[in-house]
């Protein structure tokens, strides 16, 4: 039940926008987004719960389409610090919230000056 992330990799110029998608074949309770830099632990970005939410944090926002069981992460006016691997983690609706996340394979984001 690993979620499918796309694209696998993105190369952008500083200031450009990016969209990363995460989809599941099963009903989800929540979708989490994390960013991980090489050799470091993942860092929490945001969480979206079933019911369909859209959340924003400065220039990073996300949405969750419950009908499609798909979440998208939006990076606006990307900065060099946005480089890293982005993982979505999903919790199935049958889990109730604390059964542990299953992470997608990640999207490698490279921001060039």
């Amino acid at each position: 039940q690993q979620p499918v992330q796309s694209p696998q990799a993105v190369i952008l110029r500083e200031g450009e926008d990016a969209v990363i998608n995460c989809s599941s074949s099963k009903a989800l309770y929540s979708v989490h987004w994390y960013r991980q830099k090489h050799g470091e632990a993942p860092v929490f970005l945001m969480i979206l719960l079933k019911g369909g939410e859209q959340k924003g944090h400065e220039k990073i926002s996300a949405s969750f389409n419950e009908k499609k069981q798909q979440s998208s992460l939006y990076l606006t006016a990307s900065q060099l610090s946005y480089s890293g691997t982005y993982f979505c983690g999903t919790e199935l609706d049958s889990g109730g919230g604390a059964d542990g996340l299953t992470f997608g394979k990640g999207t490698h984001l490279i921001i060039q000056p």
Partner: protein
Amino acid sequence: DAMVIQNPRYQVTQFGKPVTLSCSQTLNHNVMYWYQQKSSQAPKLLFHYYDKDFNNEADTPDNFQSRRPNTSFCFLDIRSPGLGDAAMYLCATSREGEGFRYTFGSGTRLTVV
């Protein structure tokens, strides 16, 4: 600052020699997770504790065990490490009041020689 601390940061062990990794938290979160992350792969859930209740993933090898003596501490024991167990081991915590968002520790990078 409240946080999740993993020790040691780097661990080298011999093939077949038992090793223990530790995780402590000052967040008073009731759920603690252990993830294994191999190079360029997504974190993979090994097991988690919901309070004192232990939940093992079906595909976690018997070679991996865990202990949670109290709310603050959780240990990962690898009884007979093999070369394939070399990985980053991530501890994460969460609690219901925050939608089960994860706080990750810095990880322990395990090398098996």
